[in-house]
């Protein structure tokens, strides 16, 4: 029990603080709106060095620079869209952690739904064919009576 507690404490210390490791700069904002914009944006932009992290999660130098740029832009009073436009003009759509919904990314967004519908369709078809193939079970009068007797019998 003591050991379990120790392990738990250590893991909480480790994983609970993971988000503090990255994004280490202590920044102050001129107002709450600016801070909200900043937080939303750094969690929305991809770090291009470590491609599966947002710039909020990443400790890479580029992520720090991009965070600084985002900070500077929101403090200058630019809107979230303006910052997103600035970044996509330089790094392409890839910089967006959630890809934009447009013609090029249609399959990306709709693919899972299409596969789900396809799978559902196949399952339904299969179940139906099984049901059709199974012979209908019919019992004679005597068999039905004996089943009822068995079921009604009290132990």
């Amino acid at each position: 029990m003591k050991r379990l507690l120790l392990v738990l404490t250590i893991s909480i210390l480790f994983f609970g603080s993971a988000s503090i490791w990255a994004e280490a700069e202590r920044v102050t904002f001129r107002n709450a709106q600016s801070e909200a914009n900043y937080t939303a944006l750094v969690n929305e932009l991809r770090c291009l060095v470590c491609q599966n992290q947002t710039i909020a999660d990443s400790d890479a130098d580029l992520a720090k620079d991009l965070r600084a740029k985002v900070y500077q832009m929101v403090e200058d009073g630019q809107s979230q869209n303006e910052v997103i436009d600035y970044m996509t003009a330089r790094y392409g759509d890839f910089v967006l952690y959630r890809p934009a919904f447009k013609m090029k990314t249609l399959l990306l967004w709709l693919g899972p739904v299409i596969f789900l519908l396809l799978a559902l369709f196949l399952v339904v078809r299969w179940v139906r064919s099984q049901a059709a193939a199974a012979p209908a079970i019919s019992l004679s009068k005597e068999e039905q009576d004996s089943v009822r007797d068995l079921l009604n019998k009290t132990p």
Partner: protein
Amino acid sequence: MKKSALIPLGIFAVLVVFLAIGLSLKPREVPSPFIGKPVPEFSLPTLMTKGKSISPQALKGEVWMLNVFASWCVSCRAEHDVLTRFINSENVPVLGLNYKDEPKDAKEWLAALGNPYEHIAVDYKGQVGIDLGVYGVPETFVIDKKGIIRHKSTGPVSDETVRNDLLPLILKLREEKG
């Protein structure tokens, strides 16, 4: 043999095709949105002459390259020889962007390995790097006579990239009118 026995084989074949496509993709090479756009304007201090600054305007009318490098970047060391040979044999003017580097280190690095650059701009804080969409050093841009970015390669330039991409492109761009 029953037809259904072929289903696993079919699934396997589809899987192989998808995995083969996946293997040939290069997720590190993010397509640059800059291709076909004018090179961003900037003005930065030069590395070699104190008090002087350099901007892309200085190379207008020529086919030139912009190479992002740093003394701390190992791949830059790897490409330096190839790049130098190419620059010298084809006489391509190159603007080196010294990215997030200590000027002192950069100078020592160039003194030891040779300096193929016509101009060197110091981007100490990496701000111009962001403007150029730099995310991995080294990066090399090819810019035409009108100042339009026509090509960008990420990662070290190899003899192969010179032969297949850079050289043919530069020769082609030189034929174009300014």
